[in-house]
């Protein structure tokens, strides 16, 4: 039977929140040129065969931009999904869902980066 003010105050301010908000915007700004590059490349590669695609990705600039793209993309995705889960999930499933998002995004980013580097260096 807490007072309305106690219920509104809750456990006080967490005194943090700027960092994830800011990094979501930083990755967003980075993603504007990076995804435009990816979209343009994919359009230019429309209907291309295996050799053409590998040849494109092997080039240093392409593999660098792809690595940057994957880093920014999965960081932005992780931050965005964190916010979505915090909005809608309030039960005990919240922490497992957040862990799944973090681990999933990190693993996917590493997988993508390794695949890109493998093509760039080993062909």
């Amino acid at each position: 039977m807490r007072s309305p003010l106690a219920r509104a105050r809750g456990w006080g301010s967490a005194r943090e929140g700027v960092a994830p908000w800011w990094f979501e915007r930083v990755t967003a700004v980075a993603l504007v040129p990076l995804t435009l590059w990816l979209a343009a490349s994919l359009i230019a590669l429309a209907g291309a065969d295996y050799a053409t695609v590998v040849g494109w990705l092997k080039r240093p600039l392409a593999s660098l931009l792809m690595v940057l793209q994957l880093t920014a993309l999965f960081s932005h995705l992780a931050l965005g999904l964190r916010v979505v889960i915090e909005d809608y999930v309030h039960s005990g499933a919240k922490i497992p869902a957040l862990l799944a998002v973090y681990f999933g995004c990190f693993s996917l980013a590493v997988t993508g980066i390794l695949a890109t580097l493998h093509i760039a260096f080993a062909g």
Partner: protein
Amino acid sequence: MVTRSSDEVPRTTMLQRFPVPRNLGVGPESRIKRGRTWPAPLGAVRVKTFDIYRYDPDAGDNPRLDSFEVDLDACGPMVLDVLIWIKNNVDPTLTFRRSCREGICGSCAMNIDGTNWLACTRFVSDTRSRASIYPLNNMRIIKDLVPDLTHVFAQYALIEPWLKSKTPAPVRERLQSPEERRRIDGNWECILCFCCTSGCPSHWWNADRFLGPAVLLQAWRWLVDSRDEATGERLDALEDPFRLYRCHTILNCTRTCPKGLNPGKSIAGIKKMLLERRT
């Protein structure tokens, strides 16, 4: 298509409500049942039907939607006039808050035709052919159109909406330049009707922890008041993933404010301030 100010009522609508079941996700005590129809008085010429949300705490029933056929020639031009006419002539148990009848007290805030506004400043001629009146969204209902505003007012108290200063009060006024005084324009005029807060989807999902646009607008009002000396502490109290950062710039608040204020802009100001103090 392009709304220039919040008092504009759209003439055409692509979608009147989201295509979800009428009782989607509501608890059993909140399910709205069909109510009764109250026919127009004999001899009425200009008749309009209003569907009004009703809830009687003494009857122990679920809320229901009653339909009132109203004689528009017998009442004033505003939705509040219709409610008063119904209460005086048809159903005296219809319960709603009202006071100033001129859009300054904020008592008669309610959801009319799907958006939140003050009943006393909404023309009946601007409502749909079959108008609907619901109480403010996502609030515990005391009776009929009267929501329990205890929690939102507690959130308002949480931001400590008073001047905080350690400097002893001067003999006369605390001085403020016209420039400094202008910074609180667009914020001090809030009448705390809570149309914005109850129309914010983020507040629907996180009402317990998210402060909502009305409270955050007032928080901004005190942050930019040059006479206040506790800016840092106020920002510390706001910097929280839920209290402030549940705002995703949806901007239903700015669209619905019956006083034409801009909570979205003020909240963006708070976020900028929080970033700048650590950059």
